[in-house]
């Protein structure tokens, strides 16, 4: 009995001391940690985690008080409904800011909850244009959006690869959104869209639509969708003897695409990716630090997730408060050097310095090229 009492006392005393020493500021991260794209979700979480650990190591003072930052990681399984529930859970947990979610399909519905709760959310990887067009003051992103990527693809295809462009999309929110922007980009750069064709994200047979495309004899075929369809599609393009060049967006800009396309991928296969290649990051030591801490390589968006977390912390420091309502104005005006380069947001919450990189296929891998 006595022992328990003492133990309890010691525990309470320690807890009290910790509280007296430094306040804890919680920052949430959401991404799919289970399911299809769990590896990407983990990558994003690692990025945010590294930022928070490095800031903690340096010591963070907000409004004259020393604070300890803490990451609350959640899993949305890339599913909108789960995403909403998890968002609510973060709001319950009293986080002061959120890094996430990963894909636009979950980010857009969840953004409403954060905005209602008045908690800033910065997505490192949701590129759908709609996200920042909802007029939500609390929503930001550190990644160039689909409009930017679409116009880069459209310009690249229409000016570098040929005038006549056929566009295929997979009728998902991502694929269709990007395809519409590519369509605009092609037309805006003097190209001609010979046809818009459609498939779905479960399909394996594209022969019918490719045959139709072939009859219009385009110079370029652009696929706006994921690698699981893009790879086999490229194979079927070759099986039909189509000579057109092939471009795909960031959904296909993966090693998986190359694996699935096999021999069909060649020097006239291109892809684009929002953000900079790891080799061109502003912070040259980031990759080494990341690999040292987590023992895995950077997948895609970890640097952007790092910068999203950093933006939240920098804004809190600048405002001298971790209260969302107080530091939001600072976040809107923030400008600092992150690992990806300059970080700043425009009045909608989109990044001002969004970069898009074009890659070309070379000897079994994607290599950044000058568009």
């Amino acid at each position, binding site marked *: 009995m006595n022992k328990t009492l003492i133990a309890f006392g010691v525990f309470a005393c320690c807890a009290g001391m910790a509280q007296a020493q430094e306040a804890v500021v919680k920052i949430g991260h959401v991404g799919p940690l289970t399911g299809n794209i769990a590896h990407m979700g983990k990558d994003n979480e690692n990025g945010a985690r590294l930022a928070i650990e490095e800031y903690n190591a340096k010591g963070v003072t907000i409004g004259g008080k020393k604070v300890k930052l803490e990451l609350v990681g959640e899993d949305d399984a890339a599913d909108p*409904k789960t995403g909403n529930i998890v968002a609510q859970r973060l709001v319950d947990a009293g986080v002061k800011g959120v890094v996430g979610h990963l894909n636009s399909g979950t980010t857009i519905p969840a953004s409403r909850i954060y905005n209602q709760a008045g908690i800033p959310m910065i997505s490192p990887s949701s590129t759908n244009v709609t996200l920042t067009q909802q007029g939500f003051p609390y929503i930001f992103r550190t990644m160039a959006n689909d409009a930017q990527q679409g116009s880069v693809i459209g310009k690249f295809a229409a000016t570098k690869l040929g005038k006549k462009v056929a566009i295929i999309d997979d009728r998902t929110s991502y694929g269709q959104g990007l395809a519409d922007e590519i369509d605009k980009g092609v037309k805006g750069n003097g190209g001609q869209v010979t046809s818009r064709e459609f498939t779905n994200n479960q399909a394996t047979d594209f022969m019918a639509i490719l045959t139709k495309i072939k009859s219009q004899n385009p110079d370029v075929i652009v696929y706006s969708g994921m690698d699981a369809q893009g790879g086999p599609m490229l194979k079927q393009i070759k099986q039909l003897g189509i000579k057109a060049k092939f471009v795909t967006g960031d959904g296909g800009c993966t090693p998986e695409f190359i694996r699935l396309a096999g021999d069909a991928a060649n020097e006239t296969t291109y892809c684009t990716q929002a953000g900079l290649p790891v080799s061109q990051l502003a912070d040259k030591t980031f990759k080494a630090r990341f690999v040292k801490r987590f023992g895995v390589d950077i997948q895609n968006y970890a640097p952007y997730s790092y910068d999203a977390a950093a933006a939240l912390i920098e804004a809190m420091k600048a405002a001298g408060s971790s209260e969302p309502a107080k530091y939001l104005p600072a976040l809107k005006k923030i400008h600092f050097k992150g690992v990806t380069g300059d970080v700043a947001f425009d009045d909608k919450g989109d990044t001002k310095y969004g970069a898009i990189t074009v890659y070309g296929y070379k000897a079994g891998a994607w290599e950044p090229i000058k568009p």
Partner: protein
Amino acid sequence: MNELVEAIPWLGHRHPKAARSLITCLMLLAPMIALLFGNTWVRILDFALLYVMLALGLNLVVGFAGLLDLGYIAFYAVGAYTWAFLASPHFGLHLPFYLVLPLGAAFAACAGIILGFPVLRLRGDYLAIVTLGFGEIVRIFMNNLNYPVNITNGPQGINMLDSMNLFGWDISHAVQITDTFRINPLVSFYYLFLLFVVGSVIVIRRLQISRIGRGWAAIRDDELAAKAIGINTRNMKLLAFSLGATFGGVSGGLFGSFQGFVSPESFSLMESIAILTMVVFGGMGNIGGVIIGAVALSLLPEVLRGIALPVQQQLFGKVILDPEVLRMLLLSLAMILMMQFRPAGLIPANARYSRPELARAGKGAQS
């Protein structure tokens, strides 16, 4: 209600009155209890109530009339999209809920009749596959009607739907009672949905014991005999389809107002199957069973997330089965095992108007 009462193991038979008040208390206090664990659980309860309504509606078609509908989610979609069209900035219309909700229900009922007419002659398996096709057709149209003229906004879905505005009180805003005490919007939604569920249960209960309900039971048990005793099977089946669809349409509208965002991916075939599993699991034709089935299966993924992940971490040091995979596994096993060993469901239906033959078949199969 009575079926729910009987579902309580010991109390139900001994003290039905006590059991009844226990259930009432539980229903009313559920969000308060959930609040102790955070708003998240209130949100989960809200969704559970929507599923209860869907399951009740599907039960009307599958459990009462014996028509297997694998495209039920289409009516939910019709209701949700009606809300999105008539109460969102998409077309710039902001009609009040007392117009939108009945309209959604009416459209869904029409969709039910449209589906019902051609499939009237079909039975069992054919009906199942045609309704499955219907569900997919509706989803594919919603996914593609943004081109060449934008109607549904395609896969992007429609955002910023109006919330439920009860005569000036926007339910998605917290109600400030005193400075420190306020009613959470999630809780308001809970009671609103509860009201709808209770209303549905009363209507469905009345229907079940009415002439119509008995007609359905007769068609389900033997269509030829039903025809022979003068039941207009065609009208009865159409009525089942359209009434079932109505409940789907209403819950679709509620879903739209609650979520504020609709997109075609919420209305996949998997959702239809999930609702069917709720009905089958709880007990086809039994209102209490269906409610319990729907609540249990819609809480399942969250419970799994809360339990399965830590347990696996402890046992193996890593997560082997995602909660989502586990859920699929349990759902499919539930469907198979229930049919093998307890085809009448968790809480078998009352023999009088319900499915006695299922219970018998279950026993027969075991012997």
